[in-house]
């Protein structure tokens, strides 16, 4: 299978994730859509790693997975914190830092 096919799939997943981040209001779902975008990046990295026949891209993908795990942990901690303080779990309502 050509590498280009994998890249097309990766581009489509990235765009679906971007649409989700922009349209959904629940911070949990926004985090899920961020995961989608990171995974699309992973797929592209691994496709290019296969294209060049070198393992470096796979290491990059592994590091991206670590970053994604950190982001999830901090994001979910924030959501639990919001819930504990009886704040609305909604990204539009949390706009005090807008200035």
């Amino acid at each position: 299978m050509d590498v280009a096919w994998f890249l097309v799939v990766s581009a489509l997943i990235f765009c679906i994730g971007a649409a989700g981040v922009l349209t959904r209001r629940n911070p949990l779902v926004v985090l899920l859509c961020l995961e989608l975008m990171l995974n699309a990046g992973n797929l592209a990295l691994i496709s290019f790693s296969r294209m060049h026949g070198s393992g470096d891209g796979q290491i990059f993908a592994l590091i991206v997975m670590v970053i994604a795990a950190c982001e999830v942990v901090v994001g979910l901690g924030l959501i639990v914190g919001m819930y504990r303080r009886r704040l609305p779990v909604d990204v539009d309502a949390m706009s005090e830092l807008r200035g």
Partner: protein
Amino acid sequence: MFFVAAALALAGAFGVVVLRNPFYSVLSLVVHLIALAILFLLLHAQFIAAAQVVVYAGAVMVLYVFVVAYVGGVEDDRDRDPGVVGQLGPLFALFLAVELVIALLGTGLSALDTGGAEIEAGFGSPAEIGELLLRKMLVPFEAASFLLLVAAVGAVVLARKRRGLPDEGIV
């Protein structure tokens, strides 16, 4: 095999965005991640595929399910005005998709239309990944481990119970 996995991955991704209940979104993401692991296998990245299933589809998704169960599945209500960003978001994503596909089709990278370079037998195996991580990529590896430590401490600080504690001025 490729088309089945790619269709599953795209359907899972679409489900995450479209489904109203966050719990179903999480389940849809699990389908997406497993389909993505199959794609990784097709690209000879065995170790990454295994890590994807174990770490992502296993551990991270369990974390999500716990938080959804704790917070309760708050559904987005449909009647609310989506706002400018909400209306233009899908349009923006469509333009981005068209642009990326044009960039892919018009690229000068001739190797894109091949199955990839010749690879030796151990490509993508745990042995090769481990050797690369500990020889060539030692600094990113250590930085990632430090980042994990920072994130774990940060999550504990963010999510701990504050009732009964003096206010430390952290919001």
